């Protein structure tokens, strides 16, 4: 049985940072990822990463922007930690070799991002996430003696010992189908978000909410699951993202009449208001008939100097050309709000600890919560790194304190039985996995998106519960061991359905409009009743609801205008 003091599940930015931080403490570390680490979704982050590092900027200002952006649902102690530690983390990355953009003096240069009161976004052209992740992976290779890498291993469930502590994971080697129980003193879940529950989504195909579902099934609490971000600028149909950096560089949003409609919704910040605000504005324009016939509005990048576009927005020049057939330096491109980010997730404290001792979580999987009702652009990479680092350290400290607990072989058997069951289903005995995924994605995008109401969410929840039943008999074609992606797809579908159910339940519960949750039947924010988190815990009859306080340190909730 492979064993490591600290086992990190997921090798995006959060996972890699956690592994490096744990290794620095001198414990043995294993890192598992279902795809090769550099394929992780963190490399999609184009825009950049926030930190108040410029002279004249302050962590308080960064914190306030984050809290206001969150519609006051973030926990302010966590936001303080994240924004205070941000500058040091940027410098750390720079020292490791990230090729951050420089100003003329050769020092770190910044760009503006939505919802921020200062230009504090650090970036590498428009490959920021990729550049940081590849540099962290360089470090993983460098420290390969302390950190064992399990590349293309799929983790499917958590092992909990008789004291209710997490003591390992069940993992399948994708290359040969071998299933193993890994033993660990601390397990850190960093499996990213759940965008695949919606269709279309800006997320990668691997973002199926695995860690959220595994923690939920093991009994950990989830929090803020109703808070799903729709990004204002995604390509219609395919869901590709046009980075907020475009608006940061000065691009305009226009409706079909050519009006810069943000004047009506956010007269001060215009296109750079918070994402929930801009997405709602666009959707309103589209719903009220001022959009284009394909259900979009336009993003006009031609107002940005070409030189600057080529230098700083190269990736989206390529996206426009390759995926929409549009030269963004010459004509506006059609965009609409699209599923983008999971603000909620596994409930943790500021050291990544979940409700289950020994189980940690960081990154998009976790909910600390720093993003609350709405995440600011370029705050997510920061979240992954800061809380990845902190959970790595705390997980290592725990590992130094305790001995290995014995994991029961039961989880392994359960897993083998599940796999045997899926494989034994006859072709044609039920629906295809892909059909169920499609119906799920379209339902969620139609009913649990930018605008929501009770009837729609209820319908979505009913659909999800029916699909859960149908998934039990859905069949697959591949019955082999080597790279059986079909089987993994069936397991992921189970995770996606758990995620969807939790989001519906929480969205139905929150009877107000805050951040990404906009209820047309309850259009106002209601601090008296709803300035609180919705927590969910698994029972056999579905998620059980409870509430937890929002931590407020120095910023009292105010009306939110941009």
């Amino acid at each position: 049985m492979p064993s490591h003091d600290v086992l990190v599940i997921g090798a995006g930015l959060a996972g890699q940072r956690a592994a490096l931080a744990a290794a620095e403490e001198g414990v043995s570390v294993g890192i598992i990822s279902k795809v090769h680490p550099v394929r992780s979704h963190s490399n999609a982050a184009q825009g950049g990463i926030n930190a108040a590092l410029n002279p004249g900027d302050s962590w308080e200002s960064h914190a306030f922007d984050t809290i206001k952006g969150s519609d006051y649902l973030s926990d302010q102690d966590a936001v303080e930690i994240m924004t205070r530690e941000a500058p040091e983390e940027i410098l750390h990355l720079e020292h490791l070799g990230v090729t951050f953009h420089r100003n003329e003096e050769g020092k770190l240069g910044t760009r503006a991002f939505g919802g921020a009161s200062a230009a504090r976004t650090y970036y590498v052209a428009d490959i920021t996430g990729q550049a940081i992740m590849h540099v962290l992976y360089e470090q993983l290779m460098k420290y390969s003696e302390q950190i064992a890498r399990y590349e293309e291993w799929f983790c499917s469930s958590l092992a909990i010992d008789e004291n209710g502590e997490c003591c390992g994971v069940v993992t399948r080697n994708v290359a040969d189908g071998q299933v193993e129980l890994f033993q660990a003193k601390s397990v850190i879940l960093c499996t990213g978000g759940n965008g695949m529950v919606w269709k279309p989504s800006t997320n990668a195909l691997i973002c199926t909410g695995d860690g959220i579902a595994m923690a939920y099934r093991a009994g950990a609490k989830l929090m803020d699951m109703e808070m799903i971000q729709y990004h204002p600028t995604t390509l219609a149909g395919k869901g590709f993202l046009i980075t907020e950096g475009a608006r940061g560089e000065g691009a305009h949003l226009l409706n079909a009449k050519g009006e810069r409609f943000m004047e009506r919704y956010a007269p001060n910040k215009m296109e750079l208001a918070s994402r929930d605000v801009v997405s709602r504005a666009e959707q309103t324009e589209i719903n009220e008939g001022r959009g284009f016939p394909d259900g979009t509005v336009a993003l006009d990048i031609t107002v940005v100097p070409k030189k600057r576009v080529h230098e700083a927005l190269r990736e989206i020049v390529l996206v426009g050309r390759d995926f929409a057939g549009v030269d963004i330096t010459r004509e506006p491109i059609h965009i609409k709000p699209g599923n983008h980010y999971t603000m909620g997730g596994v409930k943790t404290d500021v050291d990544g600890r979940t409700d289950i001792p020994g189980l940690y979580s960081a990154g998009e999987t976790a909910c600390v919560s720093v993003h609350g009702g709405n995440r600011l652009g370029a705050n997510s990479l920061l979240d992954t790194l800061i809380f990845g680092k902190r959970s790595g350290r705390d997980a290592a400290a725990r590992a130094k304190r305790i001995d290995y607990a014995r994991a029961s072989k039961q989880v392994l058997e359960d897993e083998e039985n599940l796999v045997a069951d899926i494989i034994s289903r006859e072709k044609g005995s039920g629906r295809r996995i892909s059909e169920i995924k499609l119906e799920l994605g379209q339902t969620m995008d139609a009913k649990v998106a930018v605008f929501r109401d009770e009837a729609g969410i209820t319908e979505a929840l009913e659909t999800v519960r029916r699909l859960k039943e149908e998934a039990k008999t859905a069949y697959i074609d591949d019955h082999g061991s080597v790279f059986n992606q079909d089987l993994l797809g069936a397991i992921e579908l189970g995770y996606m359905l758990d995620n969807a159910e939790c989001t519906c339940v929480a969205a139905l519960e929150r009877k107000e409009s805050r951040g990404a949750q906009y209820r047309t039947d309850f259009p106002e924010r209601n601090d008296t009743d709803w300035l609180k988190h919705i927590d969910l815990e698994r029972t056999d009859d579905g998620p059980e609801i409870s509430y937890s306080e929002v931590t407020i340190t120095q910023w009292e909730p105010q009306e939110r205008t941009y």
Partner: protein
Amino acid sequence: MADYTIKVRRFQPESGEGPYWEEFNVDLDPSLSVLDGLLQAKDRDDGSLAVRCSCRAAICGSCGMKVNGQSTLGCKTQIGEAQEQADKMVGAAGVSAAVADSPIRGEGSDLGSAGNPIVIEPMGNMPVIKDLITDMESTHWTKIRRVTPWLLPHGEPPEREYVVEPESMIDITQSMACIQCGACVSSCLSMEADPGFIGPAALAKAYRFVGDPRDAETHERLHDLADDPHGIYDCTHCFSCIDACPKGVAPMDQIMRLRRKAGEEGIEDPNAGHDHEIAFVKVIEKKGLLDEALLVQESYAPGIKGKLKPSKRGLTETIKSLPTILRPLRKRKVKLRQAIPGLHHGLPKEAMGDVKSIYAHAEEHSEELNLYIRGEEGDDAQPDGAAAEEVTND
């Protein structure tokens, strides 16, 4: 929506059978990708069709494959364009010979669009694990690890950031743009001849450190890459990797930068590549035409005419080249006067004026071709020559 037939080279390792071809009919918008086509076939017809993919947006580097014989990313190749390309091809051209006669299964192309099927194969220069999934660990990642792929700065880091030339960061950002997809490795001709070749992706990665002013081991790195017989001088300059690379990394250019830097460090090039390059430029500047014999002499013993004594190596290399020079002589492809250094005729005087102006232009625009800098040159003017080529390829 349009109908397409994709013809996939499949291999199911657990079946006990060899590779075979299978055709699938798919219908999707021409602007969608070849990967979308594969995923549709997988969703609708056969879930066992194995292909690595994740981002669908040419960012994660998972979906390297050959489409109509060309190494690329499945998600970056529009299926409509792939069809046009397939229609231009005659028969099974572009399909690797080894499997061209493997059995064909599936629905048959007559059900699909009228043209040729779009041919999809796993990447080359790598063992195939299953269908389109190749073993990148043994062929790609071991090579990446070979170049000591992490920053080796000198001493403790500064309190704030390292202060460096802004251009130096932009310069290495071109190789940072690499997504480790392996398309260049798949297409590399030297790799085919010498599987031990460090290869385009790993050498581009090496430049990311050699070009990084924060790295303190530039000299050692260059020596290491130059002394390795599978290192920077193993590249034959074939441009395949530049064509294949979906991210404009232009690995060959990075290799040439490494060679130039090695030359500057006084590292001797066993093939005299760098000297050869300089000699080439000099000879053309002087005569407007290529005087092959003078080129050999200039490459190994620059400036020997009367002034300098040729180095011993220069002489041996020139003598070693004699058979190469004599062969065309014997076959009468080359006249004797062309084989004697300096006797080859040059361009007429008037034409030499044009040559001079080309040199003057090149001198003025001597900056490296780097897509991250290119935008600065400016607005509407189409970048000329090589740059324009680059834009359409990346």
